[in-house]
């Protein structure tokens, strides 16, 4: 009894401490009356099934309670009534005690799609007893089962499967919302830790992460980060600490398509790469497609990062948030009109003047994000949604250097179900990235932007059991401002300049077929046809032989060609156009329930590019559209994999090899002026890129200890031969390693649930250093020392490694409502490794001696954050 009492204390809310129950129960009291009276005094609700007759009088003697605790109440009730009471969460469940040893209960539920529409014919399978049922036309199901622990599996073609554990010690009702799975049929996990690999689905080369997993990975400064989490998986890396962007299978950062609820986002990081633009609270899950990319996606050649925001809640108001060393977050979701209109809004802001203020000056640096989602359920077959995102960085240094940059995105869509087998999603979006910079002492302001307006119409069609069709059309209109330079006063030394604005339309139609050929062979194949137009108004320079860059053989250098004239294109007049057929195919061959082989091929085209001379993206980077001098990048990728689950899915193994090649990867000539250059074609050379590698992912999916081990062995190279015979191109026209080449990349992530209250996680990362060019000597010129660099990217920075640990403490783990908090304590780089972000070769300005200087970003970084829900 004492023990029970103690447990109830732990379970209880604060109200349990302050509230006592005082009542007198007479023999005339009905259960209903008792419940009403007690519910008025405490925060608990009585929960019971309809077959319990609450208007009956069960008491055979009078009962007096004076300031009793909940546990005392329950114990008294259980002693006096032929009914069993127990506390589950904030409920006191009530059911008739049964005398038989083997008890049977009913398991009921309703299955709907994301918008709350009932789904018909969904399969519910109870693994342990190999039985099941399907939902009726209202999406309801009912099963009668012996009291036991079960695993329920809910599957429906075209939707993500759900596995949930079921503890049937009373009648249970579960509500399932299935997520439409137009892209991948990768499993998503609701409650348990089952992340076993899907053996049968042809989709390969995908990394899926739920927010729960992301929040478990320790990161510098304790700010849970979806992008940093992705880098613990094979095939994903970046240029190191404090750098923006990410590289997938040896691809450049501008070759990643980043989608937030289906609309593109052009920049992925805040504070120069320390944090991603994805607020971990606002994101529900994400998938990164590294290969075998379905034909629904296109426009970038390296990867697709598909991020899904949290949905609103049609029934109850919920809130979540956190306070960290860097930022605070708050998320609210709930109904505006119950069962009709729901919202989600999330905000995150760093503390303004963050660390800079501490340095005792006027500098400030901050960022913020706002994420929103609205869902409106019109009727059974129609719903409308809106997704929005706005995020910016603001720097203000010494009242002199001011810069603001960020993304703005809005996406409005209409989902319509024609029949059980045909659904559609029509959406329009706007997305932009803007950069502004002002330097007061220089009296000028600089602005650049990419704006895009898009339309998508996607269809899902269940043709037969064996066929699922996805098809649709997409179109995006781009408006590029490569730069506006405005003098801020009349005595500014700058002249006003507007670089030529550029306009383009990228459109595509696609068909994607998921086809179950036999029990063992599953296919997914499709075709994307993309069509791109570059439009005026713009004046395009012309060059002799159409060559904007010429090679000077005397001095062995590349020079700008002298334009021979120009052509003025009127508004809406076509300047250039391209089109590409992009076939995609993937297949799986299931050897047995435990293991399979998968293979895929995809071709993709990319029409807009970033040319940058730094190793990772900077906020100033400018998107450049394909046109008369810049051809679209074309990728061909092949991948082959072996997938296996062990030990009843306790462990899973994913291994893949890939080879990819990219045509028309642009490179720049040495010393090129890439910003504020109105004729950027004069400094670009056309090259190609290739990458190949091996990826291993071994996971432990279940139990108190979960985690994964990832290893990538890969090579990324570029080759730029000149325009004509005998030219050196870049690196003498030989293959040279790309700046983002990482030969070895090894990660271990582990999470250990010690008790309900304490869990621990760790991350160890070991990588080859980044490619770098070392000097092979120096010489004196103009009284300064000039290091002489030989072959591009021939050397490497020292090995990169760090170990990070985190502990999460949840004071009241069993609470299911009210205020629930948890603390995260983390230490990044626990042994304070000074990883080189770069090594530069420079002359000491005091001693005049040449030296190599290593820049390291993070030493040991301890941090603490508090997260809450209510």
């Amino acid at each position, binding site marked *: 009894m004492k023990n029970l009492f103690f447990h109830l204390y732990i379970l209880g809310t604060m109200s349990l401490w302050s509230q006592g129950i005082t009542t007198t129960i007479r023999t005339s009291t009905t259960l209903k009356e008792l419940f009403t009276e007690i519910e008025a005094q405490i925060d608990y609700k009585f929960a019971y099934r309809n077959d319990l007759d609450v208007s009956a009088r069960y008491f055979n003697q009078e009962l007096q309670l004076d300031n009793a605790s909940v546990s005392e109440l329950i114990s008294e009730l259980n002693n006096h009534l032929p009914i069993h009471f127990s506390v589950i969460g904030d409920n006191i469940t009530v059911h008739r005690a049964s005398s038989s040893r083997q008890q049977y209960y009913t398991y009921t539920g309703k299955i709907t799609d994301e918008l709350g529409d009932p789904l018909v014919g969904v399969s519910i399978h109870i693994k342990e007893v190999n039985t099941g049922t399907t939902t009726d036309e209202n999406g309801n199901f009912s099963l009668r089962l012996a009291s036991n622990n079960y695993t329920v599996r809910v599957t429906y073609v075209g939707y993500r499967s759900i596995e949930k554990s079921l503890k049937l010690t009373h009648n249970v009702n579960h509500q399932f919302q299935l997520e439409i799975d137009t892209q991948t049929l990768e499993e998503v996990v609701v409650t348990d830790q089952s992340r076993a690999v899907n053996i049968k689905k042809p989709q390969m080369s995908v990394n899926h992460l739920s927010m729960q997993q992301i929040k478990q990975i320790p990161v510098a400064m304790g700010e849970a980060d979806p992008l940093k989490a992705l880098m613990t998986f094979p095939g994903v890396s970046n240029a190191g600490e404090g750098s923006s962007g990410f590289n997938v299978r040896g691809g450049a950062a501008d070759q990643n398509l980043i989608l937030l609820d289906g609309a593109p986002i052009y920049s992925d990081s805040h*504070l120069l790469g*320390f944090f991603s633009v994805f607020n971990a609270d606002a994101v529900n899950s994400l998938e990164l497609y590294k290969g075998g990319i379905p034909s629904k996606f296109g426009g970038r050649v390296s990867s697709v990062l598909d991020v899904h925001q949290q949905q609103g809640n049609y029934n109850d108001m919920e809130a979540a948030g956190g306070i960290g060393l860097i930022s605070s977050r708050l998320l609210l979701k709930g109904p505006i009109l119950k069962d009709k209109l729901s919202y989600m809004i999330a905000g995150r802001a760093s503390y303004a003047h963050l*660390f800079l203020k501490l*340095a*005792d000056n*006027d*500098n400030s*640096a901050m960022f913020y994000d706002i994420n929103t989602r609205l869902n409106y359920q019109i009727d059974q077959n129609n719903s409308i949604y809106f997704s929005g995102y706005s995020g910016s960085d603001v720097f203000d*240094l*010494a009242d*002199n*250097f001011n810069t603001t940059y960020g993304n703005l995105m809005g996406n409005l869509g209409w989902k319509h179900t024609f029949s059980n087998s045909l659904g559609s999603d029509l959406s329009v979006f706007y997305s932009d990235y803007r950069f502004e910079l002002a330097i007061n002492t*220089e009296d000028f302001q600089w602005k650049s932007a990419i704006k895009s307006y898009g339309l998508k119409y996607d269809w899902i069609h269940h043709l037969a059991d064996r066929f699922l069709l996805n098809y649709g059309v997409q179109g995006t209109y781009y408006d590029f401002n490569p730069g506006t*330079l405005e003098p801020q006063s009349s*005595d500014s*030394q*700058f002249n006003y*300049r507007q670089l030529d604005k550029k306009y383009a339309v990228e459109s595509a139609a696609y068909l994607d077929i998921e086809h179950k050929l036999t029990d063992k062979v599953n296919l997914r194949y499709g075709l994307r046809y993309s069509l791109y137009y570059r439009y005026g108004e713009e004046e395009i320079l012309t060059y002799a032989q159409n060559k904007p860059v010429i090679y000077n053989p005397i*001095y*062995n250098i590349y020079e700008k060609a002298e334009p021979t004239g120009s052509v003025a294109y009127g508004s809406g007049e076509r300047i250039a156009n391209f089109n590409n057929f992009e076939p995609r195919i993937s297949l799986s061959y299931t050897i047995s329930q435990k293991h399979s082989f998968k293979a895929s091929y995809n071709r993709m085209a990319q029409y807009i590019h970033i040319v940058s001379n730094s*190793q990772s993206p*900077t906020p*100033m980077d400018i998107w450049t559209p394909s046109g008369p001098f810049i051809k679209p990048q074309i990728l061909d990728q092949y991948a082959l994999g072996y997938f296996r689950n062990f030990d009843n899915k306790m462990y899973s193994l994913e291994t893949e090899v890939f080879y990819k090649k990219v045509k028309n990867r642009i490179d720049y000539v*040495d*010393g090129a002026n890439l*910003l*504020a250059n109105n004729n950027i074609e004069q400094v670009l050379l056309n090259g190609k890129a290739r990458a190949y590698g091996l990826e291993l992912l071994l996971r432990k999916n279940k139990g108190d200890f979960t985690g994964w081990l990832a290893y990538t062995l890969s090579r990324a190279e570029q080759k730029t031969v000149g325009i004509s015979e005998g030219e050196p191109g870049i690196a003498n026209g030989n293959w040279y390693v790309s700046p983002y080449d990482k030969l070895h990349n090894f990660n271990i992530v582990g999470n250990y649930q010690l008790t309900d209250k304490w869990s621990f996680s760790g991350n160890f990362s070991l990588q080859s250093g980044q490619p770098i*060019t*070392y000097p*092979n*000597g*120096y*010489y004196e*010129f*103009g*009284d*300064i*020392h*000039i290091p*002489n*660099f*030989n*072959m*591009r990217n021939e050397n490497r920075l020292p090995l990169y490694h760090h170990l990070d640990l985190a502990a999460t403490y949840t004071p009241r783990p069993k609470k299911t409502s009210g205020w629930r908090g948890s603390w995260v304590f983390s230490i990044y780089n626990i042994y304070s490794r*000074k990883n*080189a*972000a*770069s090594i*530069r070769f*420079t*002359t000491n*300005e005091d*001693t005049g*001696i*040449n030296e190599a*200087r290593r*820049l*390291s*970003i*993070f030493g040991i970084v301890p941090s603490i954050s508090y997260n809450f829900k209510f």
Partner: protein
Amino acid sequence: MKYFFDYAQMLFLSLVTLIIFSSCEDVVDVALDTGQSTIVIDAEILWQSGTDGSKQTILISKMTDYYNQQVPKVTGAEVFVENQYGQRFEFKDIGQGVYQCTNFNPELDVEYTLTVAVGDQLYTATEVMEPVSEILQVVQTVEQGFSGEDEIEVQFKFQDPADQSNYYLSDFETNILFYPEYELTDDDLYNGNVIKIGFSDEDLKIGDTVKITHRGISEQFYNYMNLILETTSGNPFATPPGNIRGNILNENEPGAYALGYFRLSQSDVATHIIE
């Protein structure tokens, strides 16, 4: 303009170190290869306004190991410059790789050809002497630097001619820095304006001397110097240009070129004492 954007990028990078307390830069030992000991010809003909420009020097040395404290000097070379009218100016070997001429005749917009014979190799280079716009004014201001400390800035102004593309190379020599600080300017975004070029250093203090040398240069030399300064700018995240070729050709073996550059500039000099 390019220089200016590099500056902006550098600002972003220095923010990294401001945001993150633990970031630091330290000197490390890196084992480096030894390249060829290529000949380096540093031939600058500088005609300071108000002088006759008759005294000129050319330096010849070799590339060496990165960690060597001295570059090897080349003596015993035969060096002369010829103008487009066939007038020849001899540069005498005065030791330590220095070659001196005392009767040079500088003329604006005239083409000159340098000839250097070292051992059995013959090197040549051709350039035109470029004019410069005179320094109008030198001003001293105080700016707040990133660290929050006030920094003294020395700025000079000149009038850019509107009817042409101009390229400038300026340097600031001080008693506090070991090496001159170069600034490269093209008038792409400033054409026809009064252009300001500044220099600041946190160690500048009252009484320090700043000597400003402002030159007009050719577009080709501008491009070369741009690469040279990129290797030394210290942008830690940019790929440095490799094997920078100047305008010096090897007449015997075209592949075995010499490093360095032959350039001719009119210059204006101003000296400012910090007050």
